[in-house]
């Protein structure tokens, strides 16, 4: 089977998945073409469930998934074109890395499973002749073995669930380069992550998931700008909070301020970057001492909450 270069490889339409009363994924629609696409969201928002449905491992409660135009749940043949690296750490404890990857090659019907397994392991910087069993490997090495088994049959669609977890910075950089290379070859590479910085380095198209829903989709730079411009709340402790609040409101650096007691000041701002630059000069100007400056919702959850609620 072949697929045109610009055709969507993966299409989800109105996909929902619930487990009893728990809604894991709610009415998600998107299409993904060739290249790297990141599925970003905090832990527990339904990313893995979504990826499982994309691969056919789980049946959507509602909606449809198409992989290369076929139903991955009903058509076992489509899995010939898919490689999956699951999130779970477990691997076959009785096997070596080579045996594990070779097994995948055999089950995919590759004519020379040994050569394919060796090639995939070498591509991941692992020694195919290593006779140690998988449980003796470090977490980072096991992650790379899992990627090797996902790419051994040269899949058209590669689904990687949190592949960068457990890797050191150099391995992480190598892995990102590999994903970008696979994407540049025209493969559809879907990478899930809960770390904004990782996704930034992938420099890819992003799908943001929050609370089971698709919160945003687009180019990373657009989303980054959106995230930077979102309203933020900043807590400042100072010996002159009222004078500081007046000066910042006057200059338009804060859109709201609450003073609590003799030291505490909470500021609402839509321009966090300029506020952070101006805060110290303004304090000096008003002869105020700054004891603490803390962004109250700068964590990833806050970013996602904003994207969902905007």
């Amino acid at each position, binding site marked *: *089977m*072949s*697929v*045109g*270069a610009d055709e969507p490889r993966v299409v989800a339409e109105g996909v929902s998945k619930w487990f009893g009363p728990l809604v894991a994924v709610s009415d998600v629609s998107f299409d993904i073409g060739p290249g790297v696409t990141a599925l970003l969201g905090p832990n527990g928002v339904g990313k893995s469930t979504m990826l*499982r449905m994309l*691969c*056919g*491992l*789980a*049946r959507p409660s509602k909606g449809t998934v198409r992989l290369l135009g076929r139903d991955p749940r009903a058509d*076992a*043949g*489509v*899995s*010939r*074109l*898919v490689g*999956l690296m*699951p999130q*779970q750490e*477990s*691997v*076959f*404890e*009785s*096997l070596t890395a080579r045996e594990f990857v070779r*097994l*995948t090659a*055999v*089950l*995919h*019907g*590759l*004519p020379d499973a040994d050569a394919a397994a060796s090639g995939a392991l070498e591509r991941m910087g692992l020694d195919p002749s290593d006779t140690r069993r998988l449980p003796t490997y470090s977490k980072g090495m096991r992650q790379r073995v899992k990627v090797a*088994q996902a790419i051994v*049959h*040269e*899949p*058209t669609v590669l689904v990687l669930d949190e592949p960068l977890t457990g890797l050191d910075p150099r391995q992480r950089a190598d892995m990102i380069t590999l994903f970008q290379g696979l994407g540049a*070859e*025209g*493969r559809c590479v879907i990478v899930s992550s809960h770390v904004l910085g990782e996704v930034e380095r992938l420099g890819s198209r992003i799908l943001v998931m929050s609370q089971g829903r698709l919160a945003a989709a687009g180019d990373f730079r657009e989303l980054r700008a959106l995230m930077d411009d979102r309203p933020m709340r900043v807590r400042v402790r100072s010996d002159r909070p009222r004078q500081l609040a007046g000066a910042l409101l006057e200059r338009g650096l804060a859109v709201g301020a609450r003073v609590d007691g003799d030291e505490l000041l909470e500021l609402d701002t839509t321009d966090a970057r300029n506020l952070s630059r101006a805060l110290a000069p303004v304090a000096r100007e008003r002869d105020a001492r700054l004891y603490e400056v803390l962004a109250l919702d700068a964590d990833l959850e806050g970013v996602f909450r904003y994207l969902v609620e905007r």
Partner: protein
Amino acid sequence: MSTIASTARPRTTASLLALTRLLLRSQVTLARLLGIAGLGALSVLLGLFSRGDENPADAAAEVIATYGLGILLPLATLWLGTSVIGDLVDDRLLVYLWLKPLSRWVLPAAAIIATFGVVAPLTALPLAATALVAGSSDVALSAFGAATLGALAYTGLFVAAGIWFRRAVWYGLAFVLLWENALAYAAEGSARFTVSEWARSILETAPGVDVEGGARSALAAFIVLPAVAVAGWLVATWRYGRADVD
């Protein structure tokens, strides 16, 4: 790159062998082998005690029917059969096997081959040895046949249970102890729905042997027991194809 295509097609036999090897290596641990071999050794020991009986053939057949076919065989098969795929589910390893371009029947078939391949020799040989040490060589062949076909039927049932239920070993234990060995014999005719009844019918083909609960046709048993295994395999395949894989 305008198009990317992967055209390799898995060979079913090669895949079946690879999966069987994997399941054997993953599931057949030394502890399990020693446990089953220990249960088998106990049967041989009981056979030794039967030597002094007035009718050693009947005594040996009784040991084989009650302990061998009623306890050893189902428990050994339960131990391996429910875990062969059940452990893959519990350990979240099934994902590596499900997402492959293979017919859904291949993995349950590999599980049955792997389980039967271990359980049959570890149960049929000790039961045949039980008859031999009791001095009833006539019973040995029928004991071997009864255990082999009984193991096949139980394997199909317990592999299916391992795919269907979490903690299938407990359901299986209740099935063996409550149904196969007790409740099925409480009502007239209900014993025909047990594996052990059909296996005992094969045991009764030995000359001069009359064991409790072996009233079925031995010829029918040669059809019924493999049919139970096939039914278990079909149910396992159906369930495997429809299950959400974690």
